[in-house]
């Protein structure tokens, strides 16, 4: 192949949105110019014939929040503006966001100040409708066994909020909107499923990874980024092991309607022996539920009639542990209540109030559940053995999956995005090959230990509270109360939270 022929080929392709460079595998042999790259003059993604081959600098597999955020980060960095970026999404990246007042998605995240700062830098934060990014100023954490509790208030460290609750689909829509505004620097392969990933091998090949799509198209890239979730195909391609375990627990989520008249500015989390239950404020009158329970109970709870489900939640937030267990034990496998939930929980609450009215925080009363918002998903903890290999980087859930106990998954994933984008930008400044392992190591070095520390902390908290063993419960009550009484320690936790936690 002659350089002149190649140069001509490129010039004729440069105007096209999707083709970066033609496939280039030269050195020793004189290979003919791949005809597929030259012959197509189409400009639409879908109209491209099967077998079309593309070449780019960065190919991001997975157009979820984390993958889309990386595309936005690269598109908005002046130093990275010369990069050809491809984003491959199996679903529909452009599905419309049907936002209605009073209707909320059941998948939400608690975004820390650090994450909000990143989203502001990417000009994404302000695209989320103000009423759909709800700040919480206080946080109440308490234990159903014993009397341990701890309260956080942003005002004590001079902050306006501890974190924001945002529905994942609203964040995703804002990211996609930003990406569309960024123009042509990112080629989107929408509704494109990955069939396989191979390496361009042979004595004269580039050694770059090639993503083969089900429709026959291929994308060769200098750097392949796996943002394709817990069952990452990119991770499998790279031969990277994922280490961790499944908790024998499910996370039950739902959108809850609350009794009116209360300023909903507090996140509530109560540790039950079976796992934590959390109410995260969405707006005045609405909160999002995250409740970790056994898989058996999760399926029963999800099919329980609304009135009984509401009673059970109110009991889980206020009643003694034994009463909750009693109610849970009286749900049939197909979700029928076997006792009168209303009577039982009212009785339980009266007894508790008479016994010690001041011992427990009182979260807002749940009065209803948004239809169709109940769902359950398995909880697991995973960390990849490595985050990078030569020409491969893993970010978000592809690299690590955490128990959603602290709503940290997305914060960790977006911190990955910030770190990887920084490593790429730094490398571009000095003319590095951005798929080079030395450059990618910087990303891994900056993220591996913090992610592991957070995962360890979340796992330990889950284990600490996942028992009703007397001495353990007594000790943790003591710990919680002691921490609660020490303002400097609390302020430190809050500052840490503001940066990257909770």
């Amino acid at each position, binding site marked *: 192949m*002659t*350089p002149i022929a*190649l*140069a001509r080929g*490129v010039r004729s392709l440069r105007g096209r949105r999707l083709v*970066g*460079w*033609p496939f*280039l*595998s*030269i*050195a*020793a*042999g*004189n290979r003919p110019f791949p005809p597929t790259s030259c012959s197509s003059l189409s400009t639409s993604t879908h109209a491209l014939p099967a077998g079309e081959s593309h*070449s780019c*600098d960065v190919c991001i597999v997975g157009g979820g929040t984390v993958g889309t955020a990386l595309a936005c980060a690269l598109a908005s960095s*002046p*130093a*990275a*503006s*010369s990069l050809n970026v491809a984003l491959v999404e199996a679903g529909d990246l452009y599905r419309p966001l049907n936002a209605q007042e009073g209707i909320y998605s059941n998948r939400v995240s608690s975004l820390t100040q650090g994450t909000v700062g990143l989203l502001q830098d990417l000009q994404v934060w302000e695209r989320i409708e103000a009423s759909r990014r709800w700040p919480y100023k206080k946080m109440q954490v308490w234990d159903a066994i014993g009397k341990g509790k701890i309260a956080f208030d942003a005002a004590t460290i001079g902050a306006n909020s501890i974190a924001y609750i945002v529905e994942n689909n609203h964040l995703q829509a804002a990211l996609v909107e930003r990406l569309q505004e960024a123009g042509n620097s990112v080629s989107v392969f929408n509704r494109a499923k990955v069939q396989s990933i191979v390496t361009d091998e042979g*004595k*004269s*090949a*580039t*050694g770059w990874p090639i993503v083969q799509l089900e429709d026959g198209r291929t994308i060769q890239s*200098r750097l392949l980024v796996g943002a394709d979730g817990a069952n990452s195909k990119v991770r499998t391609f790279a031969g990277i092991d994922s280490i961790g375990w499944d908790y024998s627990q499910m996370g039950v989520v739902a959108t809850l309607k609350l009794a009116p008249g209360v300023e909903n500015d507090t996140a509530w989390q109560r540790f039950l022996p079976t796992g934590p239950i959390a109410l995260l404020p969405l707006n005045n009158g609405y909160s999002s539920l995250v409740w970790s329970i056994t898989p058996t109970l999760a399926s029963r709870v999800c099919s329980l009639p609304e009135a009984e489900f509401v009673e059970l939640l109110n009991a889980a937030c206020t009643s003694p542990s034994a009463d909750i267990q009693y109610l849970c034990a009286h749900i049939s496998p197909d979700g029928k209540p076997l006792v009168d939930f209303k009577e039982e929980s009212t009785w339980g609450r009266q007894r508790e109030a008479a016994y010690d009215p001041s011992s427990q925080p009182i979260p807002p009363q749940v009065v209803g559940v948004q239809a169709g918002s109940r769902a359950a998903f398995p909880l697991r903890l995973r960390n990849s053995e490595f985050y990078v290999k*030569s020409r491969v980087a893993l970010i978000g859930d592809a690299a690590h999956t955490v128990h959603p106990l602290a709503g940290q998954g997305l914060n960790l994933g977006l911190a990955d995005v910030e770190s990887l984008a920084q490593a790429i930008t730094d*490398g*571009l*400044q*000095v*003319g*590095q*090959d951005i798929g*080079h*392992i*030395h*450059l990618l*190591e*910087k990303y891994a*070095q900056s993220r591996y230990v913090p992610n592991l520390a957070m995962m360890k902390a979340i796992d330990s908290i889950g284990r600490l509270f996942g028992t009703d063993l007397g001495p353990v419960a007594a000790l943790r009550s003591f710990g919680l109360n002691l921490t609660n009484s020490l303002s400097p320690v609390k302020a430190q936790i809050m500052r840490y939270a503001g940066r990257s936690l909770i």
Partner: protein
Amino acid sequence: MHHQRTLTRLFGRRLTHRKPPQYGSIRSVTSTVDQAEIAKFARAADDWWNPGGEFAMLHRMNPVRVGYVRDMLEHVGKGDGTSAAKPFTGLRFLDIGCGGGLLSEALVRLGATVVGADAAEENIHMARIHAAQDPTLQFGRGSFEYRHTTAEQLAEDGEKFDAVCALEIIEHVVDPQEFIRVCGQLVKPNGLIFCSTINRTPTSYLFTILLAEHLLRWVPPGTHEHAKYVTPEEMQRFLTGAGCEVLDIKGMSFNPASNQWSLLSGRGLGDLQMNYIVSARKMVAEEQVRPEPVDSSEGQEGSR
């Protein structure tokens, strides 16, 4: 580094010049050598470019060297200041002693027009083979040509460059003073010359030879000869003798914990004990008429 030595070891002495290479084109690789030789070069290129191989230290040092070159050129107002991605657009560089093309490729990615020159023909083959594997190097704003030639030959041909980079090469040449004088001839007036090497100190013997070569095997034993190291004072004298004004000297240090190189200000104690990098400006003709003896006690500060 020791490109020649490595290749001599890899190929023995059998590789001799067959016919004058056709400079500046990947094609010449295929037209001047047979396929078996190509396969050997490709394997050698793989070794040379292996991030965990013999040249790992050089690979890790490269981003720091390029960052320094970029900063200094920006400092003197050369290049395309408006382009964050391609700041070297419009500048013609010489990478003398280019080896496998580590520096040349980085400069091309930043928009430069680069001549990568090496006295070892094997290195030129490797560099061409490796560059051919990266499409951006073929089609980016910058461009390159690799030449099997010497600084002396380039000077004789009357070549001139906006910037000449002689990085990690001076400690491998026979007569460093003469080498720098010739490099000076290759720089356009007001152009910059960059030299990096290792200081000749007991510390550098301890770390670069005893530790790095013999004990830790970070680089192959025999890579360096301590006697060939050049002190910053000598370097400044050579550069001044070549009609250049030294602008800056910085130390470079490797942190084994983070596996990263970093620049040292050059003013701290021990900053210039080991690896260092110098930048100098080629003076215009009028400036050069008055001979300027260098006071070596000025030494490590450099003259700003």
